[in-house]
């Protein structure tokens, strides 16, 4: 379709010779982002576009008796109103692992905020007002809201006729997946314990709260297909789910990644993708959909809230004897990534510790609560919250230092996981704890630092001027966590990269084309760094990510630098080989080193490993373009046994440790986190600046869940009470302390450049470290996130 548009562009960066891997190269999209010119998905624009709007269920579980769209359709400026009956094919559901999520509700709704109808109009407000005129009659159904109501005799089934019990040994149709892990004999081992501690822990529902709302633009094509510009984490996964619903072959759904304003797992599932395409194909006009913040809270899955029961034992000299635990994750109305979250929660339930005898069980429920799926840390976060609280309880009972106790039980390279999988790369758990403990503590009572009365900004409560420090006490807490990297449990995880090398305007340049979703993590920066390192060129162009190249897999599971970075590296190596072949054919007779030496591409030249220059790349490539597309896979994994949980399920592990320093106003129940120091092993820092940024960002999301973040679902109605930034609080710059970062680089010999996925690990231990510090300050036994004032004041 012709017409003026705003869509993504190439990113070209050049002129830096020291901008290869290991350098803190600056982002190629940085200038566009600071000038406001970067094209985010909500900035997409087409000159004659319409606006789409989604009407959502006001009920959590109800039969849809009738829908009347006539008044909405008659509204001036409205071009289309669509319901379930308008879906063009028999494929009416989608889903990441289980296709159980309706494109539009049919027959009934299963959660508050489920999409029921769509409107396209010439102004967003027209669409909104027309949607309000759609009359829906609901008949309320009984609710399933927790494990007891889900598995009670005669409980209503969230999904009737569910026939996919093969996904696990699920004891009830309202359980999505179940993964036990049994190793050794926990009951027998418990007899050796001198102390046993147990606890019940509750982890609240966290939201990814990315700032860029779900949004995009669908443009109908002249061939009956559609072009979709959208923010997502995995273009090809979206494509696989979108095309069948539209009744189009995949090649007729052309997807281009638009600027992504953060993701954190919340863009793994579809949101407005199919809706925009349906409206565009129906009206024959481009359709843009942009969620507002309210709708965004209903438009993506959240982090699974969890209840965790843990029992640990230890001998009096401080060695862990056994672990028994049960983890119940609430998956909400649709499966999303729940099966994989269960796999992670169970296989990482023991944490980074050596425990030979374990009895672990994790399940995810179907309920009428909001759907939950992927979020940074993915199942490992909830477990870390519980096992780290247990470590502190054990250390206290044994009269040991909590850090020394952890170090005594820390896993290391060679440790066998509860799944039977040996850890075959560095696992510096004790060392990370040592580093974090060795950091100097921040000075006490900083509100007095100015010397002229209290600077209230440094106190809990801050500018509210609620205290001058009278009831404020300090606490220090530690935590450490383990996260798997990459897709596990036998998934065929791969990524694809296309690399082109040619001479343009007299300069050798490389173009990297992948379908990797840049969601802010800096993948575009490291791809250019890798290309510079492997191909010896200065100028690298990053092509917009789209479905014209093979899949890059998801930007999640801390896998993208490993996987698509690995794909770019391998493809660059193959391109380099072709360049050298070309060089040998053109110039091989001039110098024997062409045949005998190890050759490299450096500084725009072909050089020997001894540094002797053989040719300019410009001369080698003149008139030729080398263009290759290759896939990259990590080593294979296998599924966990459904009864014993045994199996080499994970690719790589990532470790981070935190020390939190907090000040608590015990009179007001307010907490100020003074410092959150972190030490993390990254294997190899391809871009140290980005690495530190990721670690600080992940740490802050863990801080948020510790003291303020929670989606509150009314237990009686299963309706969301706080879908706004007024009521769902994320940390501001006043809530976030200084975050000193200590980066360790112990190479993993199995990974590209020795790197280790880093994005998620810092989110794990941040939360339990803050909780430990608050417990240390107050002496209270806190077992729930987030800590609220009433938990601290007992009111």
């Amino acid at each position, binding site marked *: 379709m012709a017409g003026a548009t*705003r869509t993504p*562009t*190439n*990113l*070209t*960066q050049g*002129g830096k010779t020291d901008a290869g891997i290991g350098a*803190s190269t*600056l*982002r190629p*999209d*940085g*200038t*566009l*982002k*600071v*000038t*406001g*010119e970067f*094209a*985010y998905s*909500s*900035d997409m*624009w087409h000159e004659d576009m319409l606006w789409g709007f989604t009407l959502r269920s006001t009920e959590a579980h109800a039969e849809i008796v009738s829908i009347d769209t006539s008044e909405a359709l008659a509204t001036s400026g409205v071009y289309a109103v669509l319901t379930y009956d308008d879906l063009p094919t028999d494929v009416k559901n989608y889903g990441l692992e289980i296709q159980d999520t309706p494109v539009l509700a049919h027959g009934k709704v299963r959660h508050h905020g489920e999409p029921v109808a769509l409107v396209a109009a010439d*102004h967003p*407000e027209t669409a909104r007002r027309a949607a309000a005129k759609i009359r829906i009659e609901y008949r309320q159904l009984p609710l399933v809201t927790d494990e007891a109501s889900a598995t009670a005799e005669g409980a209503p089934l969230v999904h009737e006729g569910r026939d996919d019990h093969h996904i696990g040994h699920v004891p009830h149709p309202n359980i999505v997946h179940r993964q036990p892990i049994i190793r050794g004999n926990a009951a027998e081992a418990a007899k050796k314990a001198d102390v046993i501690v147990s606890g019940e822990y509750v982890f609240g529902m966290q939201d*990814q*709260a*990315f*700032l*860029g*709302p779900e949004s995009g633009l669908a443009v109908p094509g002249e061939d009956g297909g559609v072009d979709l510009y959208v923010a997502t984490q995995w273009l090809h996964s979206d494509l696989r789910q979108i095309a069948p619903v539209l009744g189009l072959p995949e090649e007729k759904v052309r997807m281009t990644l638009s600027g*992504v*304003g*953060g993701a*954190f797992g919340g863009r793994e599932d579809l949101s407005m993708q199919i809706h925009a395409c349906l409206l565009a194909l129906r009206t024959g006009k481009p359709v843009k959909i942009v969620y507002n*913040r309210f709708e965004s809270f209903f438009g993506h899955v959240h982090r699974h809230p969890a209840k965790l029961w843990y029992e640990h034992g230890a001998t009096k000299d401080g060695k862990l004897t056994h672990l028994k635990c049960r983890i119940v994750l609430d998956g909400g109305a649709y499966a999303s990534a729940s099966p994989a979250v269960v796999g992670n929660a169970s296989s990482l339930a023991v944490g980074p510790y050596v425990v030979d005898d374990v009895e672990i069980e994790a399940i995810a429920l179907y309920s009428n609560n909001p759907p939950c799926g992927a979020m940074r840390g993915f199942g490992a976060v909830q477990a870390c919250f519980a096992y780290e609280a247990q470590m502190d309880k054990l250390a206290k009972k044994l009269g040991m230092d909590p850090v020394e106790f952890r170090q005594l039980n820390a896993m290391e390279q060679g440790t066998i996981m509860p799944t039977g999988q040996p850890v075959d790369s560095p696992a510096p758990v004790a060392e990370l704890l040592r580093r974090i403990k060795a950091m100097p503590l921040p000075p006490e009572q900083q509100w007095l630092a100015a010397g002229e009365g209290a*600077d209230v900004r440094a106190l809990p409560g801050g*500018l509210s001027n609620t205290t001058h420090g009278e009831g404020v006490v300090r606490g220090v807490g530690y935590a450490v966590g383990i996260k798997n990297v990459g897709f596990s449990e036998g998934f065929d995880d791969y990524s694809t990269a296309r690399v082109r090398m040619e001479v343009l305007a007299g300069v050798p340049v490389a173009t990297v084309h992948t379908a990797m979703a840049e*969601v*802010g*993590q800096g993948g575009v920066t490291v791809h250019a760094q890798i290309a510079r390192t492997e191909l010896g060129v200065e100028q690298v162009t990053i092509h917009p990510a789209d479905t014209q190249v093979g899949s890059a897999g998801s930007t999640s599971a801390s896998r993208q630098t490993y996987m698509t970075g690995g794909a770019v590296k391998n493809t660059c190596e193959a391109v380099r080989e072709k360049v050298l072949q070309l060089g040998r054919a053109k110039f091989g007779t001039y110098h024997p080193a062409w045949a005998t030496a190890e050759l490299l591409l450096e500084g725009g030249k072909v050089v020997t490993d001894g540094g002797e220059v053989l040719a300019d790349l410009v001369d080698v490539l003149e008139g030729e373009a080398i263009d290759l597309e290759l896939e990259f896979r990590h080593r294979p994994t296998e599924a966990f046994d459904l009864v014993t949980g045994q199996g080499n399920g994970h690719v790589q592990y990532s470790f981070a440790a935190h020390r939190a320093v907090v000040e608590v106003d015990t009179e007001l129940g307010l907490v100020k986190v003074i410092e959150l120091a972190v030490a993390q092993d990254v294997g190899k820092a391809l871009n140290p*600046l980005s690495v*530190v*940024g990721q670690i*600080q*960002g*992940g*740490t*802050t999301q863990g801080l948020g869940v510790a003291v303020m973040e929670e989606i509150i679902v009314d237990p009686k109605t299963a309706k969301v009470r706080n879908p*706004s*930034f*007024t009521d769902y609080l*994320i*940390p*501001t*710059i*006043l809530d*976030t302390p200084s*975050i000193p970062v200590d980066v360790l680089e112990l190479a993993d010999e199995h990974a590209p450049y020795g790197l280790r996925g880093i994005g998620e690990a810092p989110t794990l231990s941040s939360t339990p470290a803050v909780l430990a510090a608050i417990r240390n300050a107050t002496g209270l036994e806190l077992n729930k996130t987030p800590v609220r004032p009433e938990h601290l004041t007992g009111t």
Partner: protein
Amino acid sequence: MRVNFTVNGRKQEADDVWEGESLLYVLRERMGLPGSKNACEQGECGSCTVRLDGVPVCSCLVAAGQVEGREVVTVEGLADYAKQRAEHGGCASGACGTSLDAAQRWQSKPADSQTGENTELSPIQQAFIDAGAVQCGFCTPGLLVAADELLERNDSPSDADIREALSGNLCRCTGYEKILDAVRLAAARGENRTAGQGA
């Protein structure tokens, strides 16, 4: 209705504006200036911060009709705004915008590469890039406008001052540490420049 106002030094006229439209909507969808971001449209996140007659405001909370005859600076105009301030001294009054004559002669200056390399940036914009304060970047425009206004008022802010000034701007990616670094960097560079001129 029709709204006449000045955006980044240029006279603008928006027609057929519906009474409920926000300044943010008019800037993004009618003026083709998508730099001000639509993260919450509730005045909670600061992503849409612009200067209205010099004062930082959430443009999502300003009705378009309220800007009639007034002067708006968005992130797209930040570099020019900072440049004029540097050339003409302080600008706390907001009166240092482009003259009408200059506005009429204004032409867009496309960058010489698609990444905008060699684009002229304000000190705070450059500092955000150099300090690694930009990740997904969705909060960046609002933070830049707020931070630039802080440095205009206070060229040597303490960390507490920076935190207070930026407390209305949410960022979900960075953990804010590098944003603090960026503001410190811009302040330090400002001091160096003054020191250099004095020597």
